[in-house]
């Protein structure tokens, strides 16, 4: 008599467990393997029980980490047994040890197919489990029809349907391309959402969710069904679903999955469905307000899971302001919850809410709580979320407070989040700086508090801001000087201070407390404590001092001549010392003054800080959506490249930093594709940017970069070969038809006629604007690719605004001029609907990028934008003024442009009217 207990197996396992050493275990296993080999010899016949036992032993040995090279056949034989236990062991074996030989695979697949087609639901389920466990390509191909049929046929049991759905999901995940689902089944699969059995519905939602991700249009019908199913669950009481009620929450898993499924689609258009969905979400929010039905943690977990998913859906739809506000309030309650996880999730969701215009204000109500969380929270990951949220909720109204709070917190903050906090503070303080002296205060404080965490980009940016803003330069010099007086300053502080004093030290030189000599001594007291890179910078500063304060020239030459510099072991320091010394000796003051002139303003590009922040965290970027500008200028060349440009020897160097279009790296390729698709929607390329891709197809990519000085626009064109072969007989010409010939004068350098594969060539040139113009020039490119002549014609996007120069003026001045330009032909006014979300900063940025100034505080209404610019043509400068009035309720803009020359206002209007 032997039962089903497999005593032999139990004995074997206990033997192994009792082995004292690895060697003993190996010996026992070798013995057993020989025994099993003897049993499995071809000429012996074994009954099912024995086969099962030995296969089990083999499986156990395999799981201990030993190689098994036989016994597959016996395992496959077990599959065709009629006993459940034997079949089960067989399936277990092959799903754990899958033999890669093809014939064996065919055999296994045949066996599985037999079981799938059998009438015994238990066997079908075993087979489905096995398919799901192996889940490889061959299985997907072999059962691409059988399993869906099981899923949709009317007579299969619920349990089988459930397994079939999950099995299909698994195959879809592992090899979605080889799984071909017949489109006739779509409707029936969707209808599984309505299945009586909640288990089937739950499994089906997961499957449909995966299918929807692949082919959203085909499964659009699921939205209505999902909403109705959801509303049935949400509105019923928990007693209605006996088995599927989890701690008083009706079918939480199904709810969560349905809510996720709905996040794949935009809010339903059908008003009835929509109102029903809103009702559901409303009910879920209401339920969260009810007292807990149980003290058990599972109850609250299940309830909150549904709630959070509902909030995610609300955020995703982003159209029901009442729901958004309610969600926000609910999250606000969670912020004070005892559960750390709950607080974490609440902060995370709130970050998303803050990005929505409807709930931004509501989120701001919780500012105090969030700041408290930042200060008192014990879990660092929660604090991190709190920082994210503060960053997301920051706007002009609360920026000062928030930045102060974050700065205060930074002193005690966890090391892991410091660098990110520094970046965020830097970005916020710059973005919302009303007063740039405040910005400088914040930044210097930042460097003082967390100098180690201030990355290069941060202090580069400080300098960029100072250089570009003439009004704060003397203040900057003053506070930099003060900051350097601290007995111990961080090296980054020395860098910033050194740079600023070098440029603007003269602005404070009249103060007896900061005479040139004092400045110089102060800086030099730090010199020997710094790294070589910083010393190089300081040497450049000394050189600038030489220009600013000729009276201390002697001292500086002394320093340069000193052995520690002149014969420094660091090549860079040595070279600088030598060159500067020589320069100071042979040049007369006027030449020196030209060479050591003040740095010109930096071209305004995207702040490198945002780029840096994005690099750090590609996913978490609440405000990222609003920064629509792609990370094109991701090179750090934006910064004041100290090593090259500290001494402004060659202005040309500025224009040549970095290639605009680089085909070499795949990232940049991907990025440029993205940017072209972005611009295909708003056709006017190169309108707001100083660099852009103006043309791209599968063969070639043309990039442009421009910089204007007065009426001359210096242009760099980049032609990139995207193919793997040479492009020959390449020529590119720009034509100025008709009137344009008299308005523009172009001058382009010749270019090479061949472009190597995956390489690019550059063409430089200048365009002079003689008078204002309306049409666009055309560009004509031709080349031979694989001996086929390719010709490309398109409009060269050169707009009038490239020649606009910013004009700054105060309120009186502005309105005086405004009133002066009151002839009918001088004004153009249009009202147009908003095409983009009406965010103040975006508009402001766009107007600035367009070329004219955006003057703050001129108009009585703070929402309005005013500004001025001068169009430089070589015949005459044309002044132009504008006023942009957004109407948020109506989602409309009114733009008024006045210009000193007739007709120009209309042209500018044409360029701008569909850009907001």
């Amino acid at each position, binding site marked *: 008599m032997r039962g089903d207990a497999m005593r032999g197996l139990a004995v074997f396992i206990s033997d192994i467990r009792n082995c*004292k*050493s*690895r060697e003993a275990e190996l*010996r*026992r296993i*070798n*013995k057993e*393997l*020989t*025994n099993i*080999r*003897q049993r*499995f*010899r071809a000429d012996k016949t074994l009954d099912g029980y024995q086969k099962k036992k030995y296969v089990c032993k083999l499986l156990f040995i395999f799981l201990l980490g030993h190689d098994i*090279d*036989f016994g597959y056949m016996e395992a496959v034989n077990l599959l065709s047994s009629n006993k459940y236990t034997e079949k089960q062991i067989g399936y277990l074996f092959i799903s754990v040890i899958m033999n890669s030989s093809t014939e064996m695979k065919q055999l296994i697949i045949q066996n599985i197919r037999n079981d799938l087609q059998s009438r015994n639901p238990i066997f079908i389920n075993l087979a489905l489990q096995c398919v799901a466990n192996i889940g490889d390509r061959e299985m997907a191909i072999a059962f691409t029809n059988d399993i869906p049929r099981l899923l949709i046929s009317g007579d299969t049991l619920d349990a089988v349907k459930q397994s079939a759905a999950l099995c299909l999901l698994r195959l879809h995940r592992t090899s979605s391309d080889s799984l071909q689902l017949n489109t006739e089944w779509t409707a029936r699969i969707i209808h599984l959402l309505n299945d009586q059995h909640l288990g089937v519905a739950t499994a089906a939602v997961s499957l449909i969710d995966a299918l929807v991700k692949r082919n959203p249009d085909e499964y659009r019908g699921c939205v209505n069904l999902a909403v109705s199913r959801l509303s049935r669950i949400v509105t019923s009481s928990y007693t209605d679903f006996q088995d599927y009620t989890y701690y008083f929450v009706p079918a939480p898993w199904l709810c969560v999955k349905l809510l996720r499924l709905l996040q794949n689609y935009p809010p339903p258009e059908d008003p009835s469905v929509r109102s029903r969905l809103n009702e559901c979400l409303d009910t879920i929010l209401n339920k969260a307000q009810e007292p807990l039905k149980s003290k058990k943690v599972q109850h609250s977990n299940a309830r909150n899971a549904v709630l959070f998913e509902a909030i995610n859906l609300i955020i995703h739809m982003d159209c029901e302001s009442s729901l958004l506000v309610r969600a926000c309030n609910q999250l606000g309650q969670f912020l004070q919850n005892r559960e750390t996880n709950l607080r974490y999730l609440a902060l995370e969701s709130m970050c998303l809410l803050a990005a929505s215009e409807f709930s931004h204000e509501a989120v701001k109500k919780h500012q105090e709580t969030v700041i408290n969380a930042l200060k008192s929270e014990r879990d660092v990951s929660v604090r991190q979320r709190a920082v994210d949220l503060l960053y997301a909720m920051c706007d002009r109204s609360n920026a000062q407070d928030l930045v102060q709070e974050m700065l205060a917190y930074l002193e005690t903050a966890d090391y892991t989040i410091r660098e990110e906090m520094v970046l965020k503070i830097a970005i916020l303080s710059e973005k919302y700086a009303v007063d740039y002296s405040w910005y400088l205060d914040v930044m210097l404080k930042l460097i003082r508090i967390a100098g180690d965490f201030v990355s290069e980009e941060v202090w580069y940016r400080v300098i960029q801001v100072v250089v570009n803003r003439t009004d704060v330069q003397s203040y900057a010099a003053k506070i930099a000087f003060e900051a350097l007086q601290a007995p111990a300053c961080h090296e980054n502080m020395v860098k910033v201070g050194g740079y600023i004093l070098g440029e603007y030290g003269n602005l404070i030189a009249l103060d007896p407390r900061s005479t040139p000599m004092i400045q110089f001594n102060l800086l030099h007291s730090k010199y020997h404590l710094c790294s070589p890179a910083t010393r190089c910078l300081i040497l450049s500063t000394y050189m600038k001092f030489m220009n600013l304060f000729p009276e201390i020239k002697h001292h500086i030459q002394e320093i340069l001549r000193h052995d520690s510099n002149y014969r420094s072991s660091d090549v860079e320091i040595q070279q600088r010392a030598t060159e500067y010394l020589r320069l100071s000796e042979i040049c007369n003051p006027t030449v020196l003054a030209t060479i050591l002139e003040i740095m010109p303003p930096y071209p305004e590009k995207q702040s490198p800080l945002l780029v840096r922040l994005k690099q750090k965290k590609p996913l978490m970027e609440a405000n990222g959506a609003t920064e629509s500008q792609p990370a094109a200028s991701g090179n750090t060349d934006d910064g004041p490249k100290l090593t090259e440009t500290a001494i402004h020897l060659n202005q040309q160097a500025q224009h040549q930093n970095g290639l605009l279009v680089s085909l070499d790296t795949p990232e940049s390729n991907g990025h440029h594709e993205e940017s072209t698709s972005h611009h295909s929607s708003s056709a006017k390329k190169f309108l707001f940017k100083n660099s852009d891709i103006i043309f791209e197809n599968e063969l070639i990519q043309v990039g442009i970069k421009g910089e204007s000085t007065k009426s001359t626009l210096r242009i760099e064109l980049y032609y990139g070969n995207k193919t793997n072969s040479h492009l020959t007989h390449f020529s590119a010409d720009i034509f100025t038809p008709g009137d344009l010939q008299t308005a523009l004068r172009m001058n382009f350098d010749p270019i090479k006629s061949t472009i190597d594969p995956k390489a690019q060539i550059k063409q430089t040139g200048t365009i002079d604007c003689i008078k204002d113009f309306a049409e666009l020039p055309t560009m004509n490119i031709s080349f031979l690719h694989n001996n086929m002549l390719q010709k490309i014609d398109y409009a060269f996007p050169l707009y009038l605004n490239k020649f606009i120069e910013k004009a700054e003026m105060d309120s009186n001045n502005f309105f005086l001029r405004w009133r002066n330009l009151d002839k009918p032909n001088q004004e153009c006014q249009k009202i147009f609907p908003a095409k983009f979300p009406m965010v103040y900063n975006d508009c402001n940025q766009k107007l600035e990028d367009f070329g004219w100034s955006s003057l703050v505080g001129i108009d009585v209404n703070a929402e309005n934008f005013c500004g001025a610019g001068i169009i430089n043509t070589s015949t005459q400068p044309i002044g132009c003024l504008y006023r942009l009035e957004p109407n948020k309720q109506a989602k409309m803009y009114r733009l008024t442009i006045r210009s000193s020359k007739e007709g120009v206002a209309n042209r500018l209007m044409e360029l701008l009217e569909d850009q907001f």
Partner: protein
Amino acid sequence: MIGGVFIYNHKGEVLISRVYRDDIGRNAVDAFRVNVIHARQQSRFPVVNIARTSFFYTKRSNIWLCAVAKQNINAAMVFEFLNKMIDVMQSYFGKISEENVKNNFVLIYELLDEILDFGYPQNSDTGVLKSFITQQGVRPVTREEQTNVTSAVTGQIGWRREGIKYRRNELFLDVIESVNLLMSQQGQVLSTHVAGRVVMKSYLSGMPECKFGINDKITVENRTKNTTDSTNATTNPNNGATNPATTTKTAIAIDDCQFHQCVKLSKFESEHSISFIPPDGEFELMRYRTTKDISLPFRVIPLVREIGRTKMEVKVVVKSNFKPTLIGQKIEIRIPIPPNTCDVQLLCMKGKAKHKASDNAIVWKMKRMGGMKESQLSAEIELTPNDKKKWNRPPISMNFEVPFAPSGFKVRYLKVFEHKLNYSDSETIKWVRYIGKSGLYETRS
């Protein structure tokens, strides 16, 4: 220098942990356990470096002994120390096992304190240690004993105390050799060497001075030169070995040798004579290694034939190759077979043969075998087809024990002089025994 010594059981639990230097932290104990004892892949190196700390270890039965050092120290010294420590422990409580280590752990700590000082190895002579570290618990030590111990340990002859007295002066000399061989299928010797030890057990009174003579080539040649110089002035008729023709034949070339600390090395260097004052009891007088003119006691002739994918035939012949009057003992031949064996049929003329599935080998044992004899085993092996990897036949190995020294090592004399007590050399009773054992004695099949 050694920073610490740890002893673990087979599960990696620490039984003994003695740290000598501050640079070894507690985490070193765990580091070794995790990285060596519990390692996924068995470590094959005797020295492991983890986080800039070296771990030197050996394993005895189920016990791991591990010495730890942070510095770059002489590894050979550490292993010598570990082996010595094992010897010492064995002489105190016999077999080294978890049980014994646990029962004697106070003793072991005491020993560890004595034989290592701040990581520097100290006197580890069992005899001396036993005079002041005993297992009988704390015993009141008299002043006299204390001074004795101190003078013995610190004196010039640290390995022997004064005032030993035996009724019968006796000494035993064992020459124990292990033969290592690797032979090709065709019977060609690929490499061979003998590692020999001379172990002495002395029960001699007073402070005897001994002189030990062997048939080393250099010594023998020196002697013959001397004797021929003195124109056969010898009066000893027994000493026929002075004939140069016979000496060259029987003399052996020792590649390198090593002596117990009691041997006066200066004398060995200048006169090539081995003279010493022996410690009391058992000790290892010398170690040596030879590689030339080794007489191999056994020859194994394998014959393997693979018949198809599922069958294999193995025939092994063993020939003994020494004087017929001698008898080899404890003969065991281990024939590896493929791992995919499912059944083995065996047939042998002599002794017992068995298929050991747990080791994937056939083990053939014979209790004894006379000289110049021959014996044979044949086996039929059934295999399960396996197309994965080809089996690379491991060599056939053999174990045995024979009553002679395969290197040809001979003890020529051992003279004892005791000046104070004045017992003569002829009064001492001397026993000499030769044992030849197998080391790694392998033949490729």
